[in-house]
C-alpha cells in the first residue's frame, strides 16, 4: 500500500483491501476505513472547494463535525449528494467526487473569486442587483443576476429517477434510551440493564467506544484498555435480551413525550435505512463532545487538522497524516496527541506556546510552513518577531464543546461556563431527559464513566478506572488574536461558507449585534455541517467585535434534525402504491372489464364513464345518458356514505341535524335532507330512510362520510348527551346499484319477481326489503336522475353478483359523469359543485327544505344573520348558452359584458356544465348574484379569454313537473 498508511496498527483489516474512486482516480483502502481516512492514506489532501471563495480544502476532522469533505456519491438514481467523507464507511466500488470545483477540485476556475474576496464580504448580495433595469436588460435581477448566482451556488447534484433503495419505519417503547456508545453511554446502558430496565442504545459510529476509538493515554477501565472495555461492554449489552443496541444509528430528533427519532443506516451499505420512533421513560444523552478548531489566519489550509483527527488518523486508521507537525492547542490536554505523533514517527517541529499564536500558513493545496509570532503586551501578535517553520501538518485544538444539540432542540437551555470554557446544559427540556459524560462537560474518562453510570441511579457499582486521566484543562475561546484586518479575511470561522473573522466584524459594524442576526447575515453555521465547528467561534468573534461577553451573546438556536436525514427515509414505506390508500367497491373489477375511466372521490375510485373500444368520452357519456332517459341504466352507488342511526331519540336527533323534519317520516318512507354547519352553510346532504320507530338509515356524500360521522358524534356526545341515540357506519355493509330509467321497474321486476312495484304498493321515496337476484336486498325508491329509480342495496360481498344480475336484466352501466349530467338537467345540486362552504340552502332555492314548524336545527340561527339575508347573494340558476352547441367551462365566471375590462365585476360562476343529449344543447348550473331575479337576463360566461352569451333561467331543465318519476 502506497501513501501514508503506517506499516501496522489501527482498527482496520489489512487483509480486506477495498478499491474506490475519487474524481475518477482509482484508490484503495481497507475494511474499517472511512472514505476520509482512505483519502488521507492515499495522500489526497484537497478533498473539495469552499462554497463562496472556492478555496482548496482538506480534511479538518475525521468525524461528524467535518465541514470540508462534502462528496457526491454514485451516479444516476444511485447518486447521493453532499455526503461527508468522514461519515461514509468505505465500500467496494464506491465512486465519490467533491461537490464543488470545476474542472476539478485541484484546478478550479472558480478559484479566481478568491483573488480579491473583499467585495464578496458578508451580505454583499443584499447591496447590489437592486436597480430594476440594467442598460439593455429589463428586470436584471430575474433575468440576469439571479440565474447567474444560482448557477454558481448549490452543492451536490440531485439524483435522477426513482430511488432504488427502500426505507422502513419502526416503533419501540423502552425504559431507558441511551444516545451514544462512548464510555458514558455504555456505562449508562449497563447500569440501566443492571436494574432490570429495557434499554435501547444507539451509536452513530460503526464501532462502539467513542473517544476511546482514536485515542491513547486514557486510564484502564476495570483493568482493561479503554477500547477493550468498551467493546466488552457493547457485547454484554448487545447480548442482553432486554436491550436493543444499534451501530451507525443516529438520534436526530427529540420530541414531545420523550420520543427519540433515530435514523439507522446499515453498517455495510451506504444508504437504505430505517427510522426508529423510540418512546422512553428516561433518555440519556451521551453524545460526547465536539473539538473546536482554532481560528487564525490560514487556518483552512489543507494540512491543518483537529488534534483529535490527527490522533484518530494514527490510532484508529493507521495513517500518517504528515511528517512535520506544528501543535497549536489552547488547553493542556496534549499528552495523547504527542504520544500518537511520536508513535507515528511524526516530528513535532514546533508547539505554539500560551504566549504565542499562529499568524499565517503557506502552501498551495498542502501545508508547507507555519508562521508563529509571540504576543505583545497588547495581546496582539508581534508580526515583526514572527518565525516561519516548515510543516505539512498543523494539529490544532480550541478545546471541546459538549454536544448539546438533542438537549437544545427539545427546549433545553445552555449557559456559558467560564470554568469549563464552553457552553453547558442549563436546564429546560423535558423531565426524564439527562446528559451524561462529555455531553455533560465531564471530559475525563473517569468522570464520564461515573456520570454515565450514575445518571441512571441505582444498580451495581460502576466501572473502576486506574491510571492517569487526561482532560482539557483551562481551555479558552478558540479565537487567536489577529493583528491586521487583512489577516482577518484569512481566518475562517465557517469553513464551508467561507465566513471569516472579518465578516463577523463587518456584521457587527453594520449593527447585526444579535447572534441570530449575525448568523443570518454572514450565513455562519448555516452549512450542511450545521455549524458544528463554526457556532462557538461565531459567538466568540461577535463578542470580540462588540466588546461583550460570550455568555451574554449566547449561541444561535439549533433546529432538528441533528444530522441530515433523507426525504425517503422520513417518508418510509409510504411510497409508490402504498403512498396513499385507494378504496374500491366490490364491482371494481367489473368496471375495469367494461372499460371504465375512473375518477378520484375522496379515497374512492369511481367509474366516471364506460368507453367502448374507440369511443371517446363525450359520445360515451351521451350514450349512457340516453340509456337512462329512454330505457334503463345502472350506476354503482356503493361509495355513498351510510350511517345507521338508532335509539329512542333517533328521530329527535335527526330533527336537530337536518333543516327539514325527520320525526314526521313514516316507517318505510325516505326523505331528502341537507345538513348545515352552525354558521348556516350547507355541509352535506343525503337521503334519510326510517327503518323503524327508533331506527334510521342515513346516506351522506361519498367524500363526506367520515367527516359527517365525526361531526354527528360531536353533537351526540358533547352537545346533546341527554339524547339516547347511537350512530354506526354501515358504508361497507351495503353495496348499492342505482337502477334508473323508464324501464327501471321492468328491470327490477326481473330481479325481484315477488315484489309489487306499483306506485301504490311501492311509491316514490319509500323503501322495501326484498329478495333481488337471489340476494337479500334493501331497495330504496329514490331518483337522482329524474327518472323512475331504485337503489338496490345488498351485502357488500354480493355487490358484484348484483351488478351482474342488473346488467343481465338489460340495464346499461353509466358512470358518475352521466350521473352529473342527469342530476344537473333536473337542477339537483351536488355538495362541492354547487356549494363551497359559503352557500346557504336559501341560496340554492331549497327554502322548501327549511321547516318553519319545528324548533331549532343546526344552522338555523345563523341563517338570520344580515349578510345571509341581504340582497346580492349568489343564487342557484340555470344557464343556457345562446349558441346551443357550446358547453361552458366549469369555473367560468359570469359577467355582464362580452368585453371585460379588469377589474371587471363578477356576478357569479359556473358550478356544473355539461352537454345534454336530452335537450340537445349545452347547459349549466351557476351561482349568480340575485340570480332568481335575473331569469331571462342575458349575461356572459367568461373563461380563459372567451366570453359566451348565456340566458339565465330556472335550474330545472328537464321534466319540471316530475312526471317521469312515475313513467
Amino acid at each position, binding site marked *: 500500500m502506497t501513501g501514508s498508511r503506517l506499516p501496522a496498527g489501527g482498527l482496520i483489516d489489512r487483509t480486506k483491501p477495498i478499491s474506490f474512486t475519487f474524481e475518477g482516480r482509482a484508490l484503495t483502502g481497507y475494511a474499517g476505513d472511512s472514505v476520509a481516512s482512505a483519502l488521507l492514506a492515499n495522500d489526497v489532501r484537497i478533498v473539495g472547494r469552499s462554497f463562496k471563495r472556492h478555496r482548496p480544502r482538506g480534511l479538518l476532522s475525521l468525524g461528524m463535525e467535518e465541514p470540508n469533505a462534502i462528496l457526491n456519491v454514485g451516479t444516476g438514481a444511485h447518486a447521493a449528494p453532499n455526503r461527508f467523507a468522514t461519515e461514509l464507511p468505505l465500500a467496494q466500488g464506491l465512486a465519490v467526487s467533491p461537490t464543488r470545483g470545476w474542472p476539478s477540485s485541484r484546478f478550479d476556475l472558480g478559484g479566481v473569486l478568491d483573488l480579491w474576496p473583499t467585495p464578496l464580504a458578508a451580505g454583499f448580495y443584499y447591496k447590489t442587483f*437592486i436597480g430594476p433595469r440594467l442598460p439593455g436588460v429589463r428586470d436584471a435581477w430575474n433575468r440576469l443576476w439571479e440565474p447567474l448566482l444560482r448557477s454558481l451556488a448549490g452543492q451536490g447534484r440531485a439524483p435522477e429517477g426513482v430511488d432504488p433503495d427502500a426505507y422502513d419505519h419502526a416503533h419501540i417503547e423502552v425504559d431507558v434510551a441511551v444516545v451514544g456508545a462512548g464510555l458514558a453511554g455504555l456505562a449508562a446502558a449497563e447500569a440501566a440493564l443492571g436494574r432490570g430496565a429495557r434499554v435501547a442504545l444507539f451509536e452513530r459510529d460503526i464501532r462502539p467506544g467513542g473517544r476511546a476509538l482514536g485515542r491513547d493515554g486514557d486510564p484502564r477501565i476495570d483493568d482493561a484498555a479503554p477500547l477493550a472495555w468498551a467493546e466488552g461492554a457493547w457485547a454484554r449489552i448487545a447480548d442482553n435480551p432486554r436491550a436493543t443496541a444499534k451501530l451507525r444509528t443516529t438520534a436526530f430528533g427529540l420530541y414531545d413525550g420523550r420520543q427519540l427519532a433515530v435514523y439507522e443506516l446499515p453498517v455495510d451499505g451506504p444508504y437504505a435505512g430505517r427510522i426508529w420512533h423510540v418512546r422512553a421513560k428516561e433518555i440519556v444523552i451521551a453524545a460526547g463532545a465536539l473539538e473546536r478548531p482554532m481560528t487564525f489566519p490560514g487556518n483552512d489550509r489543507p494540512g491543518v487538522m483537529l488534534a483529535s483527527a490527527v490522533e484518530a488518523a494514527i490510532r484508529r486508521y493507521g495513517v500518517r497524516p504528515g511528517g512535520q507537525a506544528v501543535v497549536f492547542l489552547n488547553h493542556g490536554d496534549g499528552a495523547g496527541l504527542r504520544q500518537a505523533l511520536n508513535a507515528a514517527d511524526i516530528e513535532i517541529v514546533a508547539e505554539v506556546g500560551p504566549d504565542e499564536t499562529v499568524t499565517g500558513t503557506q502552501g498551495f493545496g498542502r501545508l508547507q510552513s507555519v508562521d508563529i509570532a509571540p504576543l505583545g503586551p497588547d495581546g496582539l501578535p508581534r508580526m515583526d518577531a514572527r518565525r516561519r517553520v516548515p510543516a505539512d501538518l498543523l494539529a490544532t485544538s480550541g478545546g471541546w464543546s459538549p454536544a448539546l444539540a438533542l438537549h437544545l432542540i427539545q427546549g433545553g437551555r445552555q449557559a456559558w461556563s467560564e470554568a469549563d470554557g464552553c457552553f453547558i446544559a442549563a436546564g429546560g427540556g423535558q423531565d426524564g431527559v439527562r446528559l451524561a459524560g462529555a455531553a455533560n462537560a465531564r471530559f475525563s474518562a473517569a468522570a464520564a464513566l461515573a456520570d454515565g453510570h450514575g445518571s441512571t441511579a441505582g444498580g451495581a457499582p460502576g466501572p473502576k478506572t486506574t491510571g492517569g486521566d487526561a482532560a482539557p484543562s483551562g481551555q479558552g475561546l478558540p479565537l487567536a488574536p489577529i493583528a491586521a484586518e487583512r489577516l482577518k479575511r484569512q481566518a475562517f470561522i465557517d469553513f464551508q461558507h467561507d465566513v471569516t473573522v472579518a465578516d463577523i466584524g463587518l456584521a457587527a459594524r453594520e449593527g447585526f449585534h444579535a447572534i441570530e442576526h449575525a448568523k*443570518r447575515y454572514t450565513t455562519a453555521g448555516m452549512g450542511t455541517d450545521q455549524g458544528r465547528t463554526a457556532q462557538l467561534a461565531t459567538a466568540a468573534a461577535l463578542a470580540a467585535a462588540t466588546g461583550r461577553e460570550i455568555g451574554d451573546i449566547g449561541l444561535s438556536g439549533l433546529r432538528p434534525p441533528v444530522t441530515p436525514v433523507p*426525504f425517503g427515509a422520513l417518508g418510509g414505506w409510504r411510497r409508490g402504491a402504498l403512498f396513499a390508500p385507494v378504496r374500491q367497491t366490490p364491482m371494481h373489477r367489473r368496471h375495469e372489464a367494461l372499460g371504465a375511466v375512473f375518477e378520484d372521490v375522496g379515497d374512492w375510485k369511481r367509474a366516471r364513464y364506460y368507453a367502448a373500444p374507440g369511443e371517446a368520452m363525450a359520445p360515451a357519456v351521451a350514450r349512457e345518458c340516453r340509456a337512462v332517459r329512454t330505457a334503463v341504466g345502472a350506476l354503482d352507488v356503493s361509495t355513498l356514505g351510510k350511517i345507521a342511526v338508532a335509539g329512542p331519540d333517533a328521530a329527535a336527533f335527526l330533527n336537530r341535524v337536518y333543516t327539514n323534519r325527520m320525526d314526521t317520516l313514516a316507517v318505510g318512507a325516505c326523505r331528502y335532507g341537507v345538513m348545515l354547519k352552525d354558521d348556516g352553510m350547507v355541509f352535506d346532504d343525503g337521503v334519510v330512510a326510517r327503518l323503524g320507530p327508533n331506527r334510521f338509515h342515513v346516506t351522506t356524500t361519498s367524500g363526506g362520510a367520515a367527516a359527517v360521522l365525526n361531526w354527528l358524534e360531536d353533537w351526540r356526545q358533547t352537545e346533546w348527551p341527554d339524547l339516547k341515540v347511537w350512530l354506526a357506519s354501515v358504508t361497507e355493509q351495503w353495496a348499492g346499484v342505482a337502477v334508473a330509467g323508464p324501464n327501471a321497474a321492468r328491470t327490477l321486476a326481473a330481479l325481484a319477481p315477488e315484489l309489487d312495484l306499483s306506485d301504490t304498493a311501492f311509491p316514490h321515496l319509500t323503501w322495501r326489503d326484498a329478495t333481488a337476484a337471489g340476494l337479500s336486498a334493501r331497495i330504496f325508491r329514490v331518483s337522482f336522475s329524474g327518472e323512475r329509480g331504485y337503489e338496490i342495496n345488498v351485502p357488500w360481498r354480493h355487490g358484484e353478483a348484483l351488478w351482474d344480475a342488473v346488467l343481465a336484466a338489460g340495464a346499461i352501466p353509466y358512470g358518475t359523469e352521466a350521473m352529473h349530467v342527469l342530476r344537473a338537467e333536473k337542477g339537483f345540486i351536488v355538495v362541492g359543485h354547487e356549494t363551497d362552504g359559503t352557500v346557504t340552502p336559501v341560496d340554492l332555492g331549497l327554502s322548501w327544505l327549511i321547516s318553519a314548524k319545528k324548533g331549532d336545527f343546526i344552522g338555523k340561527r345563523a341563517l338570520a344573520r344580515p349578510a345571509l339575508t341581504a340582497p346580492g347573494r349568489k343564487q342557484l340558476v340555470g344557464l343556457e348558452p345562446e349558441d346551443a352547441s357550446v358547453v361552458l367551462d*366549469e369555473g367560468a365566471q359570469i359577467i355582464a359584458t362580452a368585453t371585460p375590462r379588469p*377589474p371587471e365585476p363578477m356576478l357569479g360562476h359556473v358550478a356544473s356544465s355539461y352537454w345534454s343529449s336530452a335537450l340537445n344543447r349545452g347547459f349549466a348550473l351557476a351561482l349568480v348574484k340575485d340570480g332568481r331575479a335575473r331569469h331571462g337576463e342575458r349575461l356572459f360566461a367568461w373563461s380563459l379569454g372567451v366570453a359566451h352569451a348565456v340566458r339565465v333561467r330556472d335550474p330545472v331543465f328537464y321534466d319540471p313537473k316530475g312526471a317521469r318519476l312515475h313513467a
Partner: protein
Amino acid sequence: MQDRFSAGRILREALGGNAGWRPWRRNPEPKPRYDVIIVGGGGHGLATAYYLAKLHGIANVAVIEKGWIGGGNAGRNTTIVRSNYLWDESAAIYEHGLKLWEGLSADLNINVMFSQRGVLNLAHTLHDVREGMRRVNANQLNGVDAEWLDAPGVKAFCPLIDISADARWPVLGATLQRRGGTARHDAVVWGYARAADRLGVDIIENAEVTAILRDGQGRFDGVETTRGTIKARTGALVAAGHSSILAAMAGFRLPIESHPLQALVSEPLKRLLDCVVMSNQVHVYVSQSDKGELVMGAGIDAYTSYTQRGALHVIEDQMAAACALFPMFSRVRVMRTWAGIVDVCPDASPIIGATPVPGLYINCGWGTGGFKATPSSGWTLAHTIATGAPHPLNAPFALKRFETGALIDEHGAAAVAH
C-alpha cells in the same frame, strides 16, 4: 436616503477594506412618548412603520419587538409570494402587495431577491380542476395574471414533476401565476427596518409588552414593556402568533386559533427546480432557494400551540408526499426543520383594522400566507392608522365581518363531490 447600496459602493468600500460600512439602523433607547406604537417587529410591523413615515409623514413611531426583529414568522416561512386568490377582496389586497413587491428592492434600496419564477398550484382531481379554473378566471377578470396549464403544460413548465397517469394523485393540470415567486425574508425585514429607521422610526428590540394601557375613556394610551412604559394615543398590534394574547391584554377576544406550522430546508443542491410548486391534495409546497436548498412547507399541526416546535409525523407525511410528486428527491436530505406559530381565522382571511378599543388597531390572522402580504398589509394598516379609516383594500377585512357573517372564505370548496 444617504448611505445607499449599489454595486459601485461595494467596490469603493472593498477598496477601503470594508471599513466604511455604517450600521443599518440605530439602536435607540425608547422615548417616553410616541405618536404611534406598533407592537411587533416582524415584516408586517416594520412595513407599517415604514409606510406611516414615508407616505403619511408620521415618523414619531416606535416599533416594539420582544426579541430580535424578524425572529417570528418573518424568519420562519417559505417566502412564497403570489396574488392569485379567488375572491375579489383577497385578489385586490394581495395584488396590491405583488405590485409593491415588484418595486420593493428599488424602494427600500436593498436587494430583497424577489424572484418572479412562477407559482404552480397543481390540480389532482376533477374538483381541483373546477376550483382551479374558477380561480384563474376570477384572477384574470380582476387583472391578476393567471394561466391554466394541462398536464403536459405542467411537465413542460416544471419537468421534475411526475405527471404519470397511474400516480395515486395524477396531475390533471395546474394554475400558474408567472409573476409569483419567492423573496429573501431576512432582506425584507432588514430592508424595511433600515428604511424606516432612516426616516426616524425607533425600532426597539428586547422589549416585551406586558400590559396595554387605556385612559379613562377606555382609549389606547400606551404599553408597559420590559424596557419601561411607552405612551402613545394610537397603537397597532402586529404580532402574528401572539395576537390573541395581546388582544386579551387589551380586553377583547379574536376569532383566531394559533397553530404550529412547520417548514424545512434540504441540503443545497445544484439548480434543478425553477418555479414554486404547490399541491393541496398531495400536500407539498416547494421551491429552491438561490443557495440551492429545497424550501418546503408542511401542513399545520392539528393542535394550538405556542411552542415553535412541531411533531415529526407531520414532517414524515410531507416527505412521503414530496417523494410521490418528485421521486428524485428521495435521497436528498432534510437539513433543518422548524415551526412558526400561525394565527388562523375561520375564513382563512386576515383581520386588518379597528378593534373594540378606540385608538388601537390590529393586523392578524394571516394564517399560513402572511409573508406575501407583508408590503400590502403594512401599506393598508398605515393608511388606516393615518386616516383613522380603512382603505378600500382592507375595509372588507374588518373584525366586524364575523358578526355580520360577511366572511371571505378562501378555504375553497368545503366538500367533495358525489
